[in-house]
Structures are given as C-alpha cells and as structure tokens.
C-alpha cells in the first residue's frame, strides 16, 4: 500500500526553501522581501522562511484588513510579526475597494472577494517598490492545482517558496518552524467574508484532497488506479475537473504566434538568465 502520509523531511525542506529565497532575491542585487500576512498558515510559513533566509529586519510583513475581516486574522498576523521581529505595516483596504463595490448594488460575494484579493496584490507590489523587496508568494500546491485562488490576486508574486508543498505538508513544516499554534490550528480561510472556510467552500478537507492530488499528480496514478486504492470515483472526477479547468490560472496568457520567434514558444530563457 502506497504511503499517503505525505510526510516530508522538514529540515531539508527548510534548507532548500530558504536557500531558494536567498538565491532569487540576492542574485538580482536585492536583499529585501515583502509578504502579505493574512493571519493564516500559508503566508505565515512564507514569512518565516523569508525571515530566516534574509534576516527578519529585511522582511516587511503587510497586514491588509477589510472592515469585515475577522479580528483573529489581524491578531494572528501580529503574533507572528512579534515572534519573528520582522518589519510590519498595516494598510486597510476598505476605502480602496468600497467605491468599486458601490458601483454595482448587485455585486456578488465572489466578485467582492476577487476585488479584495487584487487590491491586496496592488498594495503588496506598491510596497515592493517602497521597501525595495520582492513579493514572496503564499500559494500552496493544493490551491494552485485546484485553482482555489484569485487570478492576479493572491496568486500573484515575484517568487513562491511554498508552491510545491501540499497543504498538509505546509502544516507539517509550520509545526517544525514553530509557527504559533493558533495559526496552525484554526480552520483555513480566505477570510473574504464572515464565516468563510476553505474546506466548506471546496466541499472536502485538505487531508482528503491532498492524498488524491498526490496520487494523481505526483505518483501519476490513473483515476482507475486511484479508485482501486479506495478513493470515490465522483471525488476523483471532481478533483480532475478542477485541475483541468484551472490550468489557465497556472500559465501566462498564450500569445498568438505569427512571427518566427515568439515569446513563450521559441524565445525560451529562464528568469535567472545572466545571474
């Protein structure tokens, strides 16, 4: 029976991921990073890794509450800021997003959530210029595969140290890195509206879906093979559909090719070109 604990060597993960942040920031002559700290676990982990990689004084944690954001979110972010000794700033987004909400009385919760996520992206990239730091991504592998994020919102960053860790692995590494228990233990939430939780919105738990994703993606199991391991056919198909339908969020928009050499097709260089 295949091991589905998804357990990782946290010392090695820590070494590789902090090395990655340090390399990507310093190779272009920079030394600082900016992290949007939501009070949740993913951004806490990215912030801890950045602080360890670059030194706490070189990391700016930005809290960006909306008027309906839970007070816990702000408090938990502060807990981590105090523990790490990173620099911090609070930029409330209410006055920025409300005028847009008011333009359409029928605006949906989904649209409001997306606008808030994109507003936070604007604040972070603006602070990136002020603080002269790269924006560190906070999306984990589970949400990237499921597309559970706002395109050009929370999914936007300059580099992502945790995007190859499933949510359950984020939890494991967070324990090892001494992230405060209230942050680890609370139900994951985008906190875009009151009472929202990831798992109720997705319709399954991270623990369940991570196992399926690990089989289908990492271990290249066919859906039939995943069923033989004991997973429900409907669940597998729902996950497969989500992965496929959200491919667009994981890519640069395709460019229509007309020349002999086109960006994305035959103009191919790493970002680290020359560094």
């Amino acid at each position: 029976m295949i091991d589905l604990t998804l357990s990782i060597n946290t010392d090695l993960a820590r070494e590789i991921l902090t090395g990655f942040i340090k390399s990507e920031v310093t190779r272009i002559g920079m030394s600082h990073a900016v992290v949007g700290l939501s009070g949740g676990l993913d951004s806490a982990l990215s912030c801890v890794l950045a602080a360890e990689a670059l030194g706490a004084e070189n990391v700016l944690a930005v809290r960006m509450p909306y008027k309906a954001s839970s007070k816990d979110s702000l408090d938990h972010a502060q807990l981590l800021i105090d523990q790490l000794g990173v620099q911090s700033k609070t930029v409330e987004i209410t006055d920025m997003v409300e005028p847009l909400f008011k333009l359409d009385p029928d605006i949906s919760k989904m649209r409001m959530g997306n606008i808030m996520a994109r507003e936070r992206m604007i604040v972070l990239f603006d602070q990136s210029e002020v603080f002269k730091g790269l924006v560190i991504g906070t999306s984990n592998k589970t949400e990237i595969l499921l597309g559970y994020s706002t395109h050009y919102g929370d999914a936007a960053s300059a580099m992502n140290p945790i995007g190859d860790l499933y949510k359950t692995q984020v939890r494991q590494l967070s324990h090892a890195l001494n992230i405060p228990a209230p942050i680890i233990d609370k139900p994951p939430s985008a906190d875009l509206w009151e009472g929202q939780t990831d798992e109720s919105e997705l319709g399954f738990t991270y623990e369940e879906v991570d196992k399926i994703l690990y089989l289908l993606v990492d271990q290249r199991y066919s859906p039939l093979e995943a069923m033989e391991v004991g997973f429900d056919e409907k669940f597998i198909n729902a996950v497969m559909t989500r992965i496929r339908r959200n491919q667009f969020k994981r890519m640069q928009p395709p460019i229509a090719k007309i020349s002999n050499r086109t960006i994305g097709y035959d103009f191919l260089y790493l970002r680290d070109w020359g560094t």
Partner: protein
Amino acid sequence: MKLNLALAQINTKLGDVDANLAKHLDYIKQAKSQKSDLLVFPELSLAGYVLRELFASVAHKPTEDDPVFKHLLKESHNLDLVVGFVDEDSRHRFYIASAYLSGGKVLHVHHKIYLPTYGLFDEGRFFAWGDSIRAFDTRFGRVGMLICEDFWHASPPYLLWLDGADIMLFSSASPGRGLNDKEKLESARWVERVTKAYASMFTSFVAHANRVGYEDGLHFWGGATLFDPNGEEIAIGPYNEEALTFAQMDLNQLRRTRARLPLLRDERTSLVQKELGRILSRD
C-alpha cells in the same frame, strides 16, 4: 601511486562564462595550494545548466586560442582539470561536453551521449547527441568521463570499463527532487546508489562532482563523492553549498581489490557481444 583528487561543487552564473571562468581559476588556486593532482568541475561548469536558447552564446572550443580555454590550459601544467562546457563543432552542432586538460593539452573531450528530454529536462531540444564513449590515458592511468544522464544508463560505464578505464570521472548538474521523509532527496539517493554500485561492480574508482545553487526554482544538491574499487565511500562533500572536497585515491587499491575479486578478469565480453548481436538482430 596516490592521486590527490579535488572535487569542486560550485554554483554558476547562468550564461556568464567570464564570471564562471573566474570562479574556476579561484578553485584551481585553492586546489593547487592543497597539492591536488586532479580537479573535477561539474557538468556545464563554465556555462550554467538550464541554458535553453543561451546554448549558442556560451559555446567555446577547447583550443589554445580560445579566450576561455587558453587560461584553463595554462593552469593545467601541474594540475589536471576536468571542466564542463558547451562545445561547438566545426559544423555548428552544440554539445554538452567535458574536457580533460593536462600539461597544457586537451587529452580528451567527451560529448554527453544521453540528453534527458523528459520531465523537467529539455536538453535534446537544444543540444546534439554525442556518439562515442572512449577511455583515454592520463598520467594516473586510464580514465573515462561521463556526464549526468550518461551514467543513469548502465552501458556507458560498462563500456568505459571494458575500454580500460580504472578511474571514472562523473559530472552532473543534478536538480534535487523527490523530497519525502527520508534523510536525503530521492535524486541524491539514486545517484549515490548507482555511483557506488559502479565502483563495486567494476572494481574501479568512481568520482562524482555535482553542482550547487539554484536556477529559477531548480535546486542543485552538490554532495560530491569518491568511491573506491571496493565500493567504499572515500569522501563525500556537503549538500547544498559550494565546497571543494579533497580525497586521495590509493591507486594500488585497484590491484588489491582485483586480486581478491577478479570481476574484470572474468567478464565474458565475447558472450556479451554474441548475445547483443542476437538480441539486436531480432525483428
């Protein structure tokens, strides 16, 4: 006879040959100060690894008038060198290559014969496939060189063994992958397992120099190794950081091991040839 080996696990600047050459010269100086006889650099040590369309702009020819190799050849008078680079032939085919330099001369150039073009790898898209596997003579005896994917296949080390190589020099730019709850990455464990196996099965010295550093999200894990003809680990470099690892090969160990374990003597090469002929002639 003793051979003082130095294995350089360096980070490189992607596509910046001059900067990488400067680092080579620095490591050469360090190795000389420790009285090393042979210094081995990783795959594409002068160029960087994920070159994609930079492959042509970083190409060099291993000749005395080449602006990069003239420095390296000059340094090879009292320290033999293995360096990794992009070799461009006279008809403008580009190869992932390793050159063995000694006494101001190029003793051998190996073109990578297996270009991984699957998973995260895309070498076959940009590079030409090498088409020869040859051992060559050095002042320490007969040597064979292979580059990364070359030794993921069993036949190249086997052919080098039969061609007389008692010292195998492997170089890699091996991206780390397969993190689980084990002590080491899956890719590191795999490479260490097979290099140790080759040393054991071929009763030969097997040295491996691997890169460190990052290119975009890829991370190279280092961990240079030397195994002796008994398959014992003589030296292992640190993981994930630049290092120069020194190790001594006691070349007399070849004689002692092969007197005890005559695998080379007993290897039935004619049988291999006969069976290969039969297998390959099948429809």
